[in-house]
C-alpha cells in the first residue's frame, strides 16, 4: 500500500510557503483565468484542498485508492470545486490543471528536503504523482457526469414537449410533429395519438410534419407505422405540412407513402378532414364590421 507520509509532514511544515508558491504559480500560468476567478477565491480553494490533502496523507491513506473513505473529504471538496468552476465557465482541463499544478511547489520542497536520500525521494514523488493525477482526473469525471445529467434531463424534457395531440374539431385530431423522428419518439407519439383517439372518439387524425427537418426512409417508415396503428383503431390519417424540399426528397428516395392522403398545408388537410366528416365551412353573408 503506497503512502506518502514524508510528504505529509513536509507539507504541514511548509504549508504557508507551499500555498503561496502554488497560488503564485497558478496566477502566472497560461491557464490562469483572472477573468473568471479572483485571487482571494483561488487562495481559499487552494488552502482548503491543501489542508484536506495533508490530513488524508497524515492518516496514512493509500494514495492508489482515492475511492476509499480516507479521501472522502478531498473528493467532496474537489467535486464541489469542479461543479462550481464548470458553472463559472472553466474548461475541465483548466480545473484538472488546478490539481496538477500542486506538483511543482511540493516537489521542489521534497527535492530540497530529501536531497541526500535518493530512493526515498523517488518513492515520495511517485506516490504523490499517482495521487495528484487521480485527483485531477476525478475532477474531470465529476464534470462529465454533470454534463451527462444535463443532457439526459434535456432529452426527457424534449420527449415530453414534443408529443402534443390537439383536437382541431369534433372528431378531428392534429399531431404537430417537431424534430427528428426516431423509433423511441415514434413509440411515444403513437401511444399519445392512440390514447387520444380513444378519449375523443376521433375518426380522423392529421399528422403535421412541418417541423420535421428531414424525411428519409426510416422516418417515413415510422410515419407509416403510426398511420397503420391509427387505422387499426378506426381512425384515418392524413399527412400534412410537406415542404417542397421534403416532397423532392421523398420522391428521390423512392419512399412509398402508400394510400395515405398527403396535403401541403395543415389547412388543406383540415379541409379534407371536414369534408370527410360531412362538415363544411361557409362564408357568412354578413361579415362582422
Amino acid at each position: 500500500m503506497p503512502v506518502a507520509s514524508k510528504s505529509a509532514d513536509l507539507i504541514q511544515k511548509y504549508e504557508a510557503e507551499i500555498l503561496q508558491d502554488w497560488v503564485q504559480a497558478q496566477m502566472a500560468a497560461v491557464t490562469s483565468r483572472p477573468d473568471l476567478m479572483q485571487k482571494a477565491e483561488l487562495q481559499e480553494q487552494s488552502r482548503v484542498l491543501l489542508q484536506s490533502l495533508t490530513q488524508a496523507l497524515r492518516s496514512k491513506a493509500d494514495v492508489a485508492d482515492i475511492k476509499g473513505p480516507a479521501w472522502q473529504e478531498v473528493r467532496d471538496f474537489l467535486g464541489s470545486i469542479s461543479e462550481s468552476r464548470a458553472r463559472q465557465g472553466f474548461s475541465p482541463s483548466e480545473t484538472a490543471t488546478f490539481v496538477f499544478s500542486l506538483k511543482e511547489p511540493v516537489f521542489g520542497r521534497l527535492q530540497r528536503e530529501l536531497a541526500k536520500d535518493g530512493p526515498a525521494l523517488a518513492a515520495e514523488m511517485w506516490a504523490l504523482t499517482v495521487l495528484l493525477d487521480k485527483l485531477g482526473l476525478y475532477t474531470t469525471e465529476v464534470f462529465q457526469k454533470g454534463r451527462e445529467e444535463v443532457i439526459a434531463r434535456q432529452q426527457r424534457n424534449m420527449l415530453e414537449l414534443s408529443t402534443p395531440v390537439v383536437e382541431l374539431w369534433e372528431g378531428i385530431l392534429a399531431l404537430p410533429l417537431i424534430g427528428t423522428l426516431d423509433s423511441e419518439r415514434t413509440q411515444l407519439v403513437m401511444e399519445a395519438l392512440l390514447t387520444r383517439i380513444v378519449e375523443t372518439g376521433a375518426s380522423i387524425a392529421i399528422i403535421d410534419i412541418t417541423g420535421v427537418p428531414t424525411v428519409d426512409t426510416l422516418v417515413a417508415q415510422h410515419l407509416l407505422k403510426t398511420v397503420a396503428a391509427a387505422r387499426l383503431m378506426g381512425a384515418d390519417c392524413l399527412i400534412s405540412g410537406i415542404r417542397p424540399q421534403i416532397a423532392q426528397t421523398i420522391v428521390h428516395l423512392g419512399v412509398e407513402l402508400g394510400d395515405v392522403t398527403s396535403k401541403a398545408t395543415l389547412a388543406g388537410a383540415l379541409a379534407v378532414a371536414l369534408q370527410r366528416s360531412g362538415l363544411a365551412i361557409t362564408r357568412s353573408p354578413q361579415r362582422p364590421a
Partner: protein
Amino acid sequence: MDRIPILKMGEYLLVTVQVDMHDRLAMTLQEDLADRIVKARARAVLIDISALEVVDSFIGRMLGTIAAIARVLDAETVVVGMRPAVAITLVELGLALPGVRTALNVEKGMEILRRSLGKSEGNGAEASVQPADVDAQG
C-alpha cells in the same frame, strides 16, 4: 369456454371476444364464422375485440384470414374496439391488417357496415346517415 358465441342480428353477425384467444379457439371461431355466414346469409360481420389485452401474430393473422374468408362469401368485416397497446403491437409485428376494416367502437363499426351495405344496394335512405361521400375525393 371452447367456443366464442356468434350472434345474428338481421344481416349482421356479431362476435364479441370476451376471453383471451388461444390458437385453438381462434381456429374454431374461423370455422364457425364461415359456416354461419353461409347459413345465416349474413352480409356483414362485426368482431369486437375490446376485451383482448394480448394479440399475438397468430391471432393478428387470423383476423385478416377471417376478413378474407368473409369477403369471398360476400360479407363485409369490421374489427372494432382494438386497444392502443394491441394496435401498436400489431404494427410492430408488421401486421397492419391491410384488408380489414376497423372502427373505434361497436357503434362506429355498425355505422360503417350500414353505410357500405346501403351503398352496395344503392339505397339512398341508408346513405343519408352520413351526408358526405367518403370515397369520392382524395
